[in-house]
């Protein structure tokens, strides 16, 4: 579904990001894999390139640092002048009640989850404008739409993604660049393993499909949004949550 396309995925060392690059690569996309830690994606890229006969290059930068994002895109330009898909997946979780939130955490969570998405979109959109087409996929969350106790900061940063996505979709539609977001529910990643047993069960009980989601199920939605199958879909926030209620 993505043969010949170039896709940048941020935060793909593990979890949802990793599942997205693997799914994209399996579907023929050339991969630009982003992570923060130098060297952490070298083996993954080598393996994907070998297994799927694609180009897969690691691009290391911190999405929360505007200068680093620019420098990351300069590296991307040395690899390819073409960018068809950008997935803003890099994110951090914070579980703290309002009274326990400290300013440093607020800054950090918003810097990565929300501001980083804007910085990456700015440069991605410029590359996509040259070719008058592209798909930007942002990762929001079910808590960004409904809110959740103990997640004022995290859900706030993910709610920001909804506004960012809808606004950017309106700006970029004339250039045939689509911007959508995925709002995952309870997904089996390292992030959920930080929850207490009680909280984990509480979340499981709120899912109508009675099971936790997998990173691959988020990746399949990202594949749809990245592909031409969704060529007339923009400004949407797609819940992938098994009927979870919060």
């Amino acid at each position, binding site marked *: 579904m993505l043969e010949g396309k170039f896709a940048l995925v941020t935060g793909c060392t593990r979890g949802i990001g990793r599942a997205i690059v693997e799914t994209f690569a399996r579907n023929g996309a050339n991969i630009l894999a982003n992570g923060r830690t130098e060297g952490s994606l070298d083996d993954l890229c080598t393996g994907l390139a070998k297994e799927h006969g694609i180009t897969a290059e690691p691009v290391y930068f911190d999405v929360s640092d*505007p200068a680093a994002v*620019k420098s990351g*895109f*300069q590296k991307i*330009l040395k690899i390819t*002048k073409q960018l068809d898909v950008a997935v803003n997946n890099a994110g951090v979780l914070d579980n703290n009640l309002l009274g326990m939130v400290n300013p440093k955490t607020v800054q950090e969570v918003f810097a990565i989850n929300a501001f980083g998405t804007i910085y990456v979109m*700015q*440069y991605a*959109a*410029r*590359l996509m*404008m*040259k070719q008058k087409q592209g798909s930007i996929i942002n990762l929001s969350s079910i808590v960004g739409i409904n809110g959740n106790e103990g997640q004022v900061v995290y859900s706030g940063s993910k709610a920001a993604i909804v506004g960012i996505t809808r606004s950017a979709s309106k*700006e970029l539609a*004339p*250039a045939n660049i689509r911007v959508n977001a995925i709002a995952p529910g309870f997904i089996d990643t390292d992030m959920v393993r930080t929850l207490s047993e009680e909280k984990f069960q509480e979340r499981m009980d709120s899912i109508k499909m009675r099971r936790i989601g997998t990173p691959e199920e988020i990746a399949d939605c990202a594949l749809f949004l990245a592909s031409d199958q969704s060529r007339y879909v923009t400004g949407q926030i797609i819940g992938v949550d098994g009927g979870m209620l919060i």
Partner: protein
Amino acid sequence: MENTEKLRQVFAESLEIDKNKVVDSLEYNSIPEWDSVAHMSLVAAIDSAFDIMLDTDDVIDMSSFGEAKKILAKYDVEF
């Protein structure tokens, strides 16, 4: 001189205006063709033509054709 012509061509093609209209005093938002949406396409076209990546501050500061030349000079484009 060569780069001035190259930049003028980029402006004309990107904004879809006659090349003769592209003079130093041509300002952002002074003509309907150079609005905020067109500005982003123009920036993308300049990036591509000169193989650079403009800083966001420079994108914001690029308020005229004359200013664009000054900004590009910072990226070692000679005029």
